[in-house]
């Protein structure tokens, strides 16, 4: 250990604390799952990768450093890497089309038609985005991250994040 680890970056967090993982789970699970839904567009994969993300986070919980990133950002950073690994392995990008074709038993047929329509259109549009745009859309609208948090997780500047998102939304809007 060196003092560099003690003062002052770690000083604020020097008292050992750990997150309330039950609260974290309740709060972050929807965000992570929706990130994968937007990122990959397939419910089963999204659930698998969400589970993988939380298991990784759980195993690495002792390495989480509050002074370096908020918990949400930390989790989404793990999720982002899980997605990258997955896409690299699969060598394919799932679209929302396939997912949208699976009807939900919880909804009426009429409602379902509307939803499928929206989902299909959105699936098609998201699939046409550049990978980076889609990733940022997933972080912004799937996970509900702020531009600042996205910047922190991706290493992009905040203004760059804003620009990419703006262009992506413009593309979606133009093609809708």
């Amino acid at each position, binding site marked *: *250990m060196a003092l560099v680890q003690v003062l002052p970056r770690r000083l604020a967090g*020097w008292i050992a*604390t750990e997150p309330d993982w039950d609260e974290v789970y309740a709060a972050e699970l*929807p965000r992570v799952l929706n990130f994968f839904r937007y990122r990959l567009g397939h419910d089963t994969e999204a659930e698998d990768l969400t589970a993988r993300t939380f298991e990784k986070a*759980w195993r690495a919980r002792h390495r989480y450093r509050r002074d370096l990133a908020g918990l949400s950002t930390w989790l989404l950073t793990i999720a982002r890497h899980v997605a990258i690994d997955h896409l690299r392995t699969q060598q394919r990008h799932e679209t*929302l089309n396939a997912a949208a074709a699976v009807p*939900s038993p919880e909804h009426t047929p009429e409602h379902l038609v509307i939803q499928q329509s929206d989902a299909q259109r959105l699936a098609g549009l998201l699939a046409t985005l550049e990978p980076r745009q889609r990733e940022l859309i997933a972080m912004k609208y799937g996970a509900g991250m702020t531009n600042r948090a996205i910047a922190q997780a991706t290493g992009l500047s905040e203004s760059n994040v804003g620009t990419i998102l703006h262009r992506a939304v413009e593309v979606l809007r133009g093609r809708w």
Partner: protein
Amino acid sequence: MTFGDTSTDEVSEAWLLALRSEPSPLFKARLRERLHAQEPAADTPMDWPRRALFVVAALTVGAVVIAVPGVRASVAQFVSLFRVVNVVGVPLDPSRLDRLRAEHLDIGTLVGEHVQVLQDPGDPVPVASLADAGAAARMTLATPQWLPSNTQVMETAVMGERAMRITADSHRLQQVMDALGINDLSVPAGLDGLVVDVRVPPVVMIRYDHGNRRRTRLFQARTPQLTLPARVDVPALGEIGLRILGLPPLEAKQFAQAIDWHTTLIVPVPPNATSFRQVDVSGHRGVLIQHQPRDQSPTTTIVWSTPERVFALVSIQQASEALAMASSVR
């Protein structure tokens, strides 16, 4: 898959947000079950106490920086002096750190430039039992004789011995003092090049779960050893350290003169503390800090020492129960 209940004719940001949906209860329950099944993660290498260790070890090092123990009339060139007997909390003024950052004078980095790690303990190693932890740390573990009902030991781990050598740099210290406007004090003569050796024995962590999201971690280590030259005006250096932390000039002077730097561990109270107070832990002086970090539960930290050992108890439960646990450690 469903994307929520919203349908609209145009893509808008609100529409995109509304397309999110909640996880299914089944998925939620299954994943929760899987995660719980992994507890305790006894077969997983862990890094748990790296931060927590600071309660014991880093604070000792911090004490070197802000309060190098006094040598008094020793004629030996090197004297091992430091033995934690008292623990005293000193509130940290976060604006001081902000000012240093603004001046690109991160204290940790500046001092870290002069730290040589002699022995790296590596990552903490989970152990199967308290007996194994005691054997690894070469001490008989002290444990709470009183525990809240339904308490279980969830995890035990040991971090190995750590040793480092710190070389003082009076120029750097002067830079910090200048940045903070500490103009009425001078860097003690003979500080530059002074070498301090710090050895922190193995640290043991025991994690308890009390149910209902209440939990406690108890850290313990044999008292750290410091070896340092016998030619520094320690109260003067300590006063500078206290001023850097943010104590007002008069208070810092009085405190620096009154304190026995041979035996006192200074615990900087972090900015997010809601309160702190001196406490008696079975006849030993300690400090109890309550704080509620963002998105975390209210936490109580108690740091105290016996002549042989330094303890830190970090607990998410009532402060009175945390203190009762600490007081029952034997």
